[in-house]
């Protein structure tokens, strides 16, 4: 009793987010995820405060903890200053640390996120890299984005960006020294280890699911986790 709770309590976000939940359900009433998914932040707060190992372990393996959009609307409203959104962040972190994220369809998506925004941030210094955003992966970007992609240098110049050039400005090439510092920070603070864990556990899961696992986007496992929706997540 309390093993996983104690692990969660090592996270400052959990300490900040967990006071006594009175089960009023205000967080659920305001939550965008609760109006879309089978999701109830009240139950999350109530479950973790039981300190019950079995129940928390179940959460760490569940689809449930991946439904939140981290908009933090719950934070404003809770009459007891709980922050269910922060509890979710702490639960997701622990789920990844323990390799339990691969036990759910939504959790397995962490590999896709690591290989997109995670690696873009590390390798380019931006969480979004226009070259990788296309209307196959992001069809809602529409024909205007196709047009932009076809004319990116000219459009960026017209709009005052410093596209792929040195010096300050929008979409500049981040200096090599800055990228090296970013890499060092990722190394020293555990982001590289987190990335390696996501890859390691995902590879094991791919073997179990008998899906081809490779680098980048063009392999069965990546395509599966990026596109698959079993459609049993909704109300």
């Amino acid at each position, binding site marked *: 009793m309390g093993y996983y709770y104690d692990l969660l309590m090592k*996270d*400052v*976000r959990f300490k*900040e987010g967990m006071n006594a939940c009175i089960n009023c359900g205000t967080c659920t009433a305001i939550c*965008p*995820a609760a109006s879309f998914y089978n999701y109830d932040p009240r139950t999350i707060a109530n479950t973790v405060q039981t300190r019950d190992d079995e129940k928390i372990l179940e959460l760490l393996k569940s689809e449930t903890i991946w439904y939140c*959009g*981290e*908009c*933090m*609307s719950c*934070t*404003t409203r809770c009459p007891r200053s709980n922050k269910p959104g922060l509890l979710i962040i702490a639960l*997701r*972190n622990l789920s990844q640390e323990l390799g339990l994220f691969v036990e759910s369809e939504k959790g397995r*998506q*962490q590999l*896709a*996120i*690591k290989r997109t*925004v995670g690696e873009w*941030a590390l390798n380019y*210094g*931006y*969480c*979004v*890299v*226009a070259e990788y*955003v296309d209307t196959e*992966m*992001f069809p*809602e*970007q*529409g*024909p*205007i984005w196709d*047009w932009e992609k076809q*004319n990116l240098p*000219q459009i960026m110049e*017209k*709009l*005052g*960006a410093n596209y792929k050039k040195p010096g300050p*400005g*929008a979409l*500049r090439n*981040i200096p090599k020294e800055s*990228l090296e*510092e970013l890499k*060092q*920070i*990722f190394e*020293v*603070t*555990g982001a590289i280890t*987190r990335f390696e864990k996501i890859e390691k556990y995902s590879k094991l899961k791919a073997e179990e699911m008998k899906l081809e696992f490779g680098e980048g986007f063009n392999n069965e496992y990546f395509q599966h*986790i*990026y596109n*698959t*929706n079993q459609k049993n997540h909704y109300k």
Partner: protein
Amino acid sequence: MKEEGKRKIWREYQKEIADDKYYYARSCIRQTFFPGSEAAFINILKKELNKDIFDSAQHTTCTGIAYHADVVPFETTMTVIARQFALMTEAGYENYVPSCITSFGLYTEVLETWKEFPEVEAKVREHLFKATKREFKKPANLAHASDVIFKHRHEITAKAKYKLINVKTGKPLRGVEHIGCHYAKMFPHKGVGGAEYPYVLAGMIQEWGGEVIDYPERRHCCGFGFRQYLVKANRGYSIACSKKKFEAMEPYKPDFILTNCPGCPMFFDRWQYAISEMEGKTYGENGQGIPVLTYEELAGLVLGYDPWILGLQVHQTPVEPLLDKMGIDYNPNAKFLGPNNEYLNKPIAPNFLKFY
């Protein structure tokens, strides 16, 4: 609530916004989808308001999107933010102005965390020094770029060429304001007007002659939800949130949507297109959409900047209905021209959304 009561509450939520000498940090999403907005912000600050604003080549993403999609640990994000503060300190500035709302929320959260857990700040300083040999001072003032425009809204009015008035009817144009969730939902006192009555965008609309629409889903999230948009399989969440808002605002016939977060305008713009393709539904008059603007774009229009230099041609939901209502003098034939007036071909027209 009576207008007088609202004003009283807003007065209680006024925040301090530095007047000059800003250190600017760019946004990953705004640079990619609305680069003209960041250029307009710097132009307005430097040329219209005569302010000192520093634009560093060395700063990077704060990792906010990766952090809120849970692939980057808090320790990493805090240390990257500490590096941004170090760059500000080294440049001789102390007023930090991020372009991004996710960043603004995270900077606020990190500073508050350090207040409550000084040992966490000490560890971050250690990590930063180990990784980069840098040290930092915390900002004396942290304000989002929309706060800065809000602060100087009267000076912008003094130089305005256009107002938010329908030139045909003489009536105020009606705007929906959408505040990014991380602006004030986590720390209400850090936002102008707090989380309940955020005034940062409403203040701009009213100041420039428009009218603010109050509607049922005014404070609902745009639907980014980080992992809920980033992964294709989850995107139903994102479009459903935006749709909920469109349906709620439609009866009030808004002339435009104004936003302060970089992601929200992209989602409102693109999801209107996606809904029109999926269901044939459009939310404006006669097959038009509801034009979606960033606050920089709106300030730029009011000041008379060329819509095609502001970047309004890269919106998927056309903005011409608003330009026409404001009586803006623009060249429709220049919309798809490049920097040297070369024709860049025309994007493919959507099936339902009226295309210009």
